[in-house]
């Protein structure tokens, strides 16, 4: 039994009722978990000496609009002895956008979560410093959501510069 099979077996035994789905695609294993057990599972995976998923390689999300659950937050964990990767996916019920922060477990989740707050509008309860990170502080909307159009900033040319300028929110002379 290799490390990933062992992990899935232990997770099923320990958190059986909190697991939603175990999927395998192109040799990568994704375990979908309930939001209520997310942090416990992450901590268990990191702190159990047998499992030892100590490295949070990536944390991101995707928007499945119009399907529900709409937002799925994805944690890319790695065990560094056998280089086993495990993906934990946490679908947020319905259209909800709040979930607990992973920063007490993985300190480097800090910026990843700020990025998700910035670009998806997800809020992480208990995050120490939840501010926008790549967009300007006063930006309206969350660009990576599927209902946010590409190129929604109008392009100004000489012939329509003033027309578009008048509709912009900043102060006019």
């Amino acid at each position, binding site marked *: 039994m290799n490390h990933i099979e062992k992990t899935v077996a232990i997770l099923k035994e320990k958190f059986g009722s909190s697991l939603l789905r175990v999927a395998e695609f192109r040799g990568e294993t994704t375990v979908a978990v309930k939001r209520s057990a997310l942090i416990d599972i992450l901590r268990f995976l990191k702190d159990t000496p047998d499992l030892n998923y100590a490295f949070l390689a*990536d944390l*991101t999300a995707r*928007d499945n609009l119009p399907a529900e659950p709409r937002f799925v937050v994805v944690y890319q964990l790695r065990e*560094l002895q056998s280089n086993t990767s495990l993906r934990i996916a946490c679908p947020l019920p319905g259209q909800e956008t709040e979930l607990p922060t992973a920063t007490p477990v993985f300190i*480097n989740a800090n910026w990843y979560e700020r990025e998700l707050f910035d670009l998806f509008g997800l809020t992480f309860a208990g995050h120490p410093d939840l*501010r926008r*990170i790549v967009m300007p502080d006063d930006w309206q909307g969350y*660009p990576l959501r599927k209902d946010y159009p590409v190129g929604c900033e109008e392009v100004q040319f000489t012939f329509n510069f003033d027309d578009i300028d008048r509709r912009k929110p900043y102060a006019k002379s």
Partner: protein
Amino acid sequence: MFDSELQDPQLDKLKHLFSHRALTGETMVLNMGPQHPSTHGVLRLVLELDGEIIINMVPIIGYLHTGVEKNMEDKTFLQALVMSDRLDYLNNMGNNLAYSLAVEKLVGIDVPERAQVLRVMLVELQRIASHLVWLGTHAGDMAAQSMLFYTFRERDDILDIFEMISGQRMMTSYIRPGGVWRDVPSGFVEAVRAFIDRLPAKLKEYDALLLNNPIWLDRTKNIGVIDGQSALAWGITGPALRGSGIAYDIRKAMPYSGYEQYEFDVPVGKNGDVYDRYLVRREEFHQSLRIVDQALRRLSPGPVITSDRKVAAPPRSELGTSMEAVIHHFKLYTEGFSAPEGEVYVAVESPRGELGVYLVGNGGPRPHRIHWRTPSFVNLQALPVMARQHYIADVVGIIGSIDIVLGDADR
């Protein structure tokens, strides 16, 4: 200097990140960047200083944010490729490779042997080019200005090779899903061979300027120390992690493109300071040269892109004689190819660390979601940990030692 509270409304939002001494004016809050010449791009740092000692530091990024991920979701898999070069502008081939590997894994495409060898050769040349820029700018930051002229001279030779094969010096888009754009022209092998024969002597020159230079040693030894376990906890990868003594390299840990067939060592440091990170990259020049040399020997004739007509265009010569080829050509460039529903994560070792691509397909010809896990973004997060309790003059050295590219961090 602030009397009773931070007056600037922008700084007011950062209040919780500084000590209470900043609020009484006992320590000074100083802005550095984003136009500072030594922050390697548009990085802004807000420093809290006690005299010249850094108490805390808040990196502020986003000045180069271009919404690449959003843009890629709006393009077909082939169109989106050209955006990957523009993320990390010192690692164009590596970004092309990470993206191509992700698409290949998602769609299920096989890559011919010759293309694999070319890919390895080119990303290693790119690693050398990137490290040359790092060495020149890093040393320049710490007053060894002349390095830049030497390292850029050698880097230009690599860019000439890239221009020879792709027509572009930087935004190559040469590595593509299924293989590489087209076969290398005659003279390529000789040019690479000449370059890897020439470089070791130049590396000796760089050593003569830096390796035992007392000013360089003073400015790099025991500066910006981070131990291996903290580095891992912060998600640091690449030379910055190896400088702290952890021999973790994606090329060894999760080999891709046939890296398991090449012989090379993973250099590690001991102290995790700026000097050790310098030593690690210095040794990586030699290891990359070794890999390029092996790849040159391994290069054998053959196709350079998959023969699967659904993902790679038919050769020009077929278009005049085969209706099938015309249809494939038309479908590929108008509609593109479709990826199944599913998600993959692919990581490669970029010159800066783990470059990961998380790609989700939805059955259509465009990515449903693509996320770039970029090493600069993650490594930058640990900058305050390395910089605390050091002098303000050492900040530029520490920034240089983690070798950030802001295009990579901001995406």
